[in-house]
């Protein structure tokens, strides 16, 4: 039993508590739910951020997330996974991304949530554009994100 998988890409905000409840409500097989929320920061190294605009590749983004959710389901005993990624203009303090992983025990839920986030960062086709007082510019990818994803590569 792998449980329900929900993958959504949307402009609208999401409610973390509601998404966790949707995954676990009324079930007695789940003993652990781990959720990760990615939130737009107001400060970056270079200064204050007014907003981020998220662009994505419709079709491929959903498929790429699904491929990684399927891999997570094959690697850990999960009872359900929810991934929600917002697109469009997002201001500091607002939600960007949500990953929820449910399992019987905490280790699988923690690891699957971290695995999914690491791969969302490096391989799901989304791009952030930053607005600040000095103008707008595309956010550059970080080598540390590639290193984080590489940890999960099976040798």
């Amino acid at each position, binding site marked *: 039993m792998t449980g329900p998988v929900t993958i959504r890409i949307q402009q609208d905000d999401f409610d973390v508590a509601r998404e966790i409840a949707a995954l676990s409500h009324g079930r007695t097989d789940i003993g652990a739910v781990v959720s990760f929320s*990615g939130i737009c920061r107001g400060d970056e190294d270079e200064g204050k951020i007014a907003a981020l605009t*998220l*662009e*994505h*590749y419709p*079709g*491929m983004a959903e*498929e*790429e997330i699904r491929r990684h959710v399927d891999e997570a389901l094959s690697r850990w005993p999960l009872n359900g996974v929810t991934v929600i*990624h917002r697109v469009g203009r997002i201001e500091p303090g607002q939600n*960007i*991304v949500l990953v929820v992983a449910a399992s019987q025990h905490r280790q699988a839920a923690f690891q699957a949530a971290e695995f999914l*986030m690491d791969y*969302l*960062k*490096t*391989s*799901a*086709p*989304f*791009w*952030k*554009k930053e607005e600040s007082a000095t103008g707008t510019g*595309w*956010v*550059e*990818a970080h080598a540390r*994100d590639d290193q984080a994803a590489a940890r999960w590569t099976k040798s």
Partner: protein
Amino acid sequence: MKVKYFAWVRERVGKAEETIEPPAGVRTVEELIAWLSGRSEAYAYAFEKPKVIRAAIDHAHVKPDATIAGAREIAFFPPMTGG
């Protein structure tokens, strides 16, 4: 075949998608990038650092030496920064 561009690749090329018919000698993703670069200054600017550009064929990531034969949709974009 249909080609799509995203983020700053899209901005530099000046369009989000188009249909192209590369000559028969263009067989791989990197050869397609080289051919596109020769079309105009806008394309040359978008692909000025070809090693930075990522590509996908029919919604799956591919390497520069991937063959484009049979591809319905090829996308070019910078390294991803979601999450």
